[in-house]
């Protein structure tokens, strides 16, 4: 038995962890699963218990990497589910292509990207990962392989289905052509939340990628002050001359590593406050046409390996919700409450979502999404998040399963209106309930 947690390092549970190297091996492991069932795991970048299965089998899919192919005529990529987006970028960028969607870390697998229907900074124009997938190969509970397309209901139960319909073994998805491996970025600071929302609403659509980092420790008149970074892939002629020789170079710097043991109180109000003040202060009031690499623009946190250890041994929770446009008041109340409570959130990120996919348990919907990290142990945290749950649900919003580690089952049932439809399809694909995870038990999926 191996103790597993998600990225937040909370609620560890033991499981029989195996790492199949082929689809046949994976099928054999599924057949051998006992009453506690089995679930796939990628790179463990979901924050909570989605890729855990207490007392059961967990299939580490990161060795399912046997194939990948790219068709430059169509831009379609077919990749084994265990490949990471990092590996794909390394292959694709020199050829002048980029993945259709990347989350805030590129250390996620294709399987994990499908299962969580991940979104990136381009959601407002390009939707989520599932929108770009043309076909999937799914290993189901009976050990058979099913080829699925967006015309199949099981396809949309799998996209966003958190590994509970089967093991994704391969996916084909459309990539985007790029002239360079650099980003052309505008940075600007806003004074408060109103201005943040105004600027994003008015001008986000001019950019393919946008995000706002909110300084939650700023209070009063400065509450909600933010740094907006927005941009697009740089064209070759936008690069400084010295970069034009090798415009598609992609070699993210080797990573620093956080020490394996960090005292629990390291991230406190003082240190995070200092960090936030510096970050905000460092950002130019407005700066246009900054040229940045892929890594610093999309994945600033990947620069420090194991940064999640910075939160100490008790771990941390990530709270990410979406509320529809028109529910700005809910967003404001949450930010206000967080600021007033002096909640220590290291990275608080606000984004505008565009259209969702037909994924039945897919998270994104048109609206505002806010994501924050909070160390466990902060007083009154459970109660505060319960209040937020109520506000979010009342506003017609919901929480992201890939980040969740604490919502009650009632919140899930009340905010994912297509849950029953999803269950019916899942039950047909997996009548004996082989696919199970701690998340599924906790949320009564």
């Amino acid at each position, binding site marked *: *038995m191996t103790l597993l947690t998600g990225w937040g390092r909370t609620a*560890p549970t033991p*499981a029989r962890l195996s790492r199949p190297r082929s689809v046949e091996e994976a099928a054999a492991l599924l057949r051998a699963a006992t009453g*506690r069932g089995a679930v796939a795991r990628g790179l463990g970048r979901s924050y909570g218990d989605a890729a855990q299965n207490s*007392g059961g089998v967990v299939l580490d899919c990161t060795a399912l990497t046997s194939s990948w192919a790219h068709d430059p005529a169509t831009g379609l990529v077919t990749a084994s589910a265990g490949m990471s987006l990092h590996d794909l970028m390394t292959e694709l960028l020199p050829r002048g292509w980029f993945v259709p969607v990347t989350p805030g870390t590129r250390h996620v697998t294709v399987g994990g990207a499908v299962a969580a229907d991940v979104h990136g900074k381009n959601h407002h124009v390009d939707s989520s990962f599932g929108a770009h997938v043309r076909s999937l190969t799914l290993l189901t509970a009976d050990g058979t392989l099913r080829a699925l397309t967006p015309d199949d209901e099981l396809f949309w139960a799998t996209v966003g289905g958190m590994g509970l319909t089967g093991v994704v073994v391969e996916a084909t998805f459309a990539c985007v052509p790029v002239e360079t491996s650099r980003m052309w970025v505008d940075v600007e600071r806003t004074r408060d939340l109103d201005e943040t929302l105004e600027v994003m609403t008015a001008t986000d659509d001019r950019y393919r990628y946008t995000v706002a980092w909110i300084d939650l420790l700023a209070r009063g008149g400065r509450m909600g002050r933010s740094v907006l970074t927005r941009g697009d892939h740089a064209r070759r002629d936008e690069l400084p001359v010295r970069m034009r020789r090798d415009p598609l170079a992609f070699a993210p710097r080797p990573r620093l590593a956080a020490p394996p043991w960090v005292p629990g109180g390291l991230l406190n109000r003082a240190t995070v406050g200092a960090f936030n003040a510096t970050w905000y202060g460092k950002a130019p009031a407005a700066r246009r046409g900054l040229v940045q690499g892929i890594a610093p623009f999309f994945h600033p946190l990947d620069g420090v390996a194991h940064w999640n250890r910075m939160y100490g041994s008790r771990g941390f929770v990530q709270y990410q919700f979406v509320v529809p446009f028109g529910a700005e008041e809910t967003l404001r109340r949450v930010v206000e409450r967080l600021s007033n409570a002096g909640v220590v959130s290291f990275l608080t990120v606000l984004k505008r979502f565009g259209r969702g996919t037909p994924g039945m348990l897919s998270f994104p919907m048109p609206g505002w999404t806010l994501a924050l990290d909070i160390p*466990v142990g902060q007083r009154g945290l459970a109660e505060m998040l319960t209040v937020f749950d109520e506000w979010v649900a009342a506003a017609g919003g919901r929480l992201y399963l890939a980040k969740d580690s604490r919502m*009650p089952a009632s919140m899930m049932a009340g905010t994912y209106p297509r849950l029953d439809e999803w269950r019916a399809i899942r039950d047909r694909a997996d009548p004996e309930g082989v696919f199970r995870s*701690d998340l599924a038990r*906790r949320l009564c999926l």
Partner: protein
Amino acid sequence: MKNALGSVDTVLLLGGRSEIGLAIVERLVRAGARRVMLAARGGTAPVDRLRKLGAEVHLADFDAARPETHAALIEDAATRLGDLDVVIPAFGVLGRQAVYDADPVAAARDVAVNFGGHVSIGLAAARRLREQGHGTLVVLSSVAGVRVRKANFVYGSAKAGLDGFAQGLADSLHGSGARVVVVRPGFVIGRMTEGMSPAPMSVTVDTVADAVIDGLRSGRRTVWVPARLRPVFAVMRVLPQAVWRRLPR
């Protein structure tokens, strides 16, 4: 499943009318537990309060003195509740020593509940928790078992046995993901001790329940209530027998 902030989904209370047990369950429900089973002799227990708090409450017939039924009860609970997150055997009888002196059969019967019943239900529950890979067994021991007194040595010796059993079980579950919390209250003012004059450092049922919740959160293995009984008993344990024997109660 226990979530990232320590709240649980399911609770099984054995001795479904126990004052201390119900106080613990109520706190767990307030913190988010949604499915509860109260198992008591005759299958009746106070459900209204817990249902008002939003819990789905199941009832089951349970007699601690019938160990042959215990494995099936645990199974039934797991079928109705799902994974068992917290299991609380809170049954017990506090007979008078004078009565036991006169009626050895009654003494043996109560020991069978206070010790034997906990052994069979504890082992059955542990098997399930081990299989699940998570879950906590809350064992209500007592300072009466830390060093047995002549004033209630039948009850005390059963608690001493229970405490030893719980320690051993905790060690045997180590590494399985499941765990045991051993609770050692002193004199608790409540139904069980009705009519007795409170001992020094006595506590209320609510204090015990709060301490148990705290213990569940912190991951502590032993919970003394009140906490200062721990140093007190460190001394009590080493008092010479001649002194101990003369203690009034």
